[in-house]
């Protein structure tokens, strides 16, 4: 069958999955007084539509920053404004200042879900389709399979269409940036990534790899001459994009400073809630939060993050190829996730996006990580009443990626790039590493399934009320740590040769 029909059928299937999840509950449904992220987005529409720009990020009588104050960069605010404009034409009650707080109705839910779908259709899905068609190797059937699995990644669907957020927009822009960089359009890529940064500040997780890749490329083409010219062009583009986005706030320095203060709240602690990163998991053994002071916590996390990120970025700087870029993206975002300050469980999506890019080259590891990332957000899904969509989408994703990508078949040592491990552990007796990896995969999936069932069904003992969230986040943490180490090892070993790539297809 022709590629276009296969592609459209897959995209339509992805839309059905998304819309199906939309019909479920959202975060904070029916839970006054604060509700949840859904109400936060609605409130931002209310604020941006009714108040002048100068007041958006400030605490005024009309704008109470304690009730879901704006804490994303200006592009989110503009997007909310556009949605509010449409909302006003349909039903003004949805965005009435003050009176619409906690507004919930089926019509409104439909509208909000529609805005997410439209944003996805315009930004995220085209980027995925183009990436899979132009930047992956293999037959057209393989490309479509990868695209299908990419689009079916449960974590993003459940967060955007269940919990309710607009991650598709920021991840979509980042993906456009990656796509442009892969096709050699560096300036456009940097513009797209700047847009992503201006939509959600968490995209900073991806910033270092972009920087190192572009810098490395400029250095390679010669720092005197074309390289310098490229560097200047990129710099100018980035600055111009930022200036354009922040234009209304650049009139007064106090405005810009307030925005920065809102999007980087450093007054909070090392971690909030149960997250699958180092600090939270370490906290179960040693109570870090109480041992160290606030400042030293900040410095510790900064130091660890830098240490974790540097090897990968320096390697990218010295070898700025697209393959290293993809790996560096995963490594950098994972490093930030594992060691950074005030990390939310949803930030794992920033590591999941680059992992999706690796579905073609390292299918087993990528899908393993993606499954673990969805699993890590299970407590959040349970809180939002999204258990059935979680089960269905996870099983669907697992099934399709294993079947369509033949992940378990291409399991030789060569394919998994385990050669480096052999060199590292040369003193250990020679084992069939591929066999071990496959069994680790089965055991891990079984563990995730078991823990999911336990968390959903069992009641924890009264003296350990957080038993299951802690177990979930610790298991996920172990997976993430393992993935982090593995992808670092892969980045430092030889890149795939053209011949072995052709054979695998």
């Amino acid at each position, binding site marked *: 069958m022709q590629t276009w029909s296969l592609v459209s059928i897959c995209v339509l299937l992805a839309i059905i999955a998304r819309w199906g999840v939309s019909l*479920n509950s959202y975060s904070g449904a029916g839970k006054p007084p604060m509700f949840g992220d859904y109400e936060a987005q609605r409130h931002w529409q209310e604020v941006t539509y009714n108040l002048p720009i100068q007041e958006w990020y400030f605490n005024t009588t009309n704008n109470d920053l304690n009730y879901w104050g704006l804490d994303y960069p200006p592009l989110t605010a503009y997007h909310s404004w556009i949605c509010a404009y449409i909302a006003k034409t349909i039903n003004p009650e949805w965005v009435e200042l003050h009176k619409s707080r906690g507004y919930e109705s089926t019509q409104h839910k439909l509208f909000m879900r529609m805005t997410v779908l439209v944003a996805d259709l315009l930004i995220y899905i085209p980027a995925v389709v183009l990436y899979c068609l132009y930047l992956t190797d293999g037959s057209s059937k393989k490309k479509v399979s990868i695209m299908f699995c990419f689009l079916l990644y449960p974590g993003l669907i459940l967060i955007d269409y269940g919990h309710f957020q607009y991650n598709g927009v920021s991840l979509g822009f980042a993906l456009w940036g990656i796509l442009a960089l892969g096709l050699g359009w560096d300036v456009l890529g940097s513009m797209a990534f700047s847009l992503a940064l201006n939509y959600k500040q968490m995209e900073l997780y991806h910033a270092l790899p972009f920087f190192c890749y572009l810098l490395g490329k400029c250095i390679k083409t010669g720092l005197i001459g074309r390289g310098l010219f490229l560097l200047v062009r990129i710099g100018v583009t980035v600055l111009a994009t930022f200036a354009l986005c922040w234009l209304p706030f650049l009139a007064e320095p106090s405005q810009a400073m307030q925005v920065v203060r809102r999007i980087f709240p450093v007054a909070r602690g090392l971690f909030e809630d149960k997250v699958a990163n180092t600090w939270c998991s370490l906290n179960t053994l040693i109570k870090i939060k109480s041992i160290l002071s606030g400042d030293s916590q900040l410095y510790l996390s900064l130091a660890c993050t830098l240490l974790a990120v540097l090897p990968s970025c320096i390697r990218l700087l010295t070898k700025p190829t697209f393959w290293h870029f993809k790996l560096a993206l995963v490594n950098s975002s994972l490093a930030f996730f594992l060691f950074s300050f005030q990390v939310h469980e949803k930030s794992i999506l920033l590591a999941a996006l680059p992992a999706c890019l690796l579905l073609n080259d390292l299918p087993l590891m990528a899908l393993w990580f993606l499954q673990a990332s969805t699993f890590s957000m299970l407590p959040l899904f349970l809180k939002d009443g999204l258990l059935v969509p979680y089960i269905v989408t996870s099983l669907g994703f697992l*099934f399709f990626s294993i079947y369509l990508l033949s992940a378990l078949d291409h399991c030789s040592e060569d394919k998994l790039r385990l050669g480096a491990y052999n060199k590292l552990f040369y003193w250990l007796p020679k084992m069939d590493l591929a066999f071990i990896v496959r069994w680790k995969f089965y055991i891990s999936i079984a563990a995730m399934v078991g823990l999911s069932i336990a968390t959903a069904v069992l009641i924890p003992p009264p003296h350990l009320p957080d038993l299951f969230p802690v177990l979930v986040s610790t298991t996920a943490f172990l997976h993430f740590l393992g993935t982090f180490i593995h992808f670092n090892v892969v980045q430092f070993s030889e890149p795939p040769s053209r011949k072995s790539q052709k054979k695998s297809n």
Partner: protein
Amino acid sequence: TETFGISTAQLTPLCSVKNLIQVPTVRSTDFEVHRNWLAITHSLPVSRWYYENTSEWTLDYPPLFAWFELGLSQVARRFDANMLQVENLNYASPATVLFQRLSVIVTDVVFIYAARECCRCVREPKGSRDVLSRPSFVLAVLLLWNFGLLVVDHIHFQYNGFLFGFLLLSVAKHLQSQHLQGALLFAFLLNLKHIYLYVAPAYGVYLLRSYCFAQDNKDGSVRWSSFSPLRLLALGAIVTSVCALSFGPFIAMGQLPQVLSRLFPFKRGLCHAYWAPNIWALYNVLDKSLAVLGVRLKLLEEAELPPASMTGGLVQEFEHSVLPSVTPAVTLVCTLLSILPAVASIWLRPHGAQGFLRCLLLCALGCFMFGWHVHEKAILIAILPLSILAVESREDAGIFLILTTTGHYSLFPLLFTPAELPIKVVLMLMFTIFSFTALRKLHSAQGSLLHPLEVIYLLGLVAVAIACEVVFPLSPWQQRLPFLPLLVTSVYCAMGVCYAFLRLYASLLLRREEKPKQL
């Protein structure tokens, strides 16, 4: 079968996946209907089943289905016992919804098995092709992902997958020349849902002609001497035993008239609230336009006309204003006349099981076109078996595309909430894209599938869709003529369905190249 193995593996989880996600969608009245039947069969003694009318949704399927509901209710008890109280009208706890949806998904196993059997009957062309272009794979997708079935069963809620499984399995058995099994399955099916009486003539005549008369003459006519009373007896025994199993207790209690009156309620009116796209829809429109024309031209008094009850949305008896009214007897006669040529054709010149399938389709379509109080879901009885023919012959593929697209589009009004709009549009697009491209690829060697005029007609469907779903709700006529989009939909689709009916007839009656087979 190995192809089918792959496709089942790929497709079934997709189906179930999607369906489970949709558990929280808006439920239709059919949901309450089945819950009520679960309650009736579980809580009341058998003698009261067909007399019970606490709820308006009385038991109007044959007894075997009631036994089936009884079996289901035993499982339902573990989910939520409250749904089994007859007084709990419109009871819909999350556990109830989950149970009902799961029951549909589980009983779909019958349909999947039937689809597999049908795929085994399809001839594979020589030469290896990639999986996606093999006829059996295409058939599997056309059956398992049939838009109509997905919408009616999993969103709207019915057990059609289960029932169609029996029909397709019976057809497959006949195609594989296992006629007794086919007859048994059809007997079961008739006792589960009596709408399949539509296709009973095809079965009756075919089995009598091609099974009871074991051999034909050289020129294809009946060889009276080869009549086998044993075979007739076997068929009779099968049918009567199944009917005894289902109706037995009720005959013993003398409740047969009551049961029959529940099964065949003729008071319901010529057309459903939303007109099925059949001849009577065209007839109604003709009548209405003549009435309007008559009033304009001062030939009729407006006061003499009966009030606008046909488009009023209620199911009741009504009369036509200009053209003669239609009674159940008239529809019966028209139906019989319409299927007579088809039935006669397989008696006089049987073409084996393929001819039987064609006759089955024509009976289904004929009854759909001319029947009394036909529901638009009945179009699926014609669409699903036609898929088998579509993957084998180019002409049938063309007819299939027209019938399917119009038939499926006519199901759109079943889902009318804004939440379901994206789902039905996307599912329809998916099925249409797949059926067009896959069938075109299968028959690419033999020329194009559709005539340009047919393509224009189908594109017109898109225009109708946009007009009804998007433009109309925002226009000023929304208040005054709320049933206008339904009317337009059913009339436009009726034209397509009539055309497909005539073309299928032509393909049956003009077939000369196939020799009658020996059994």
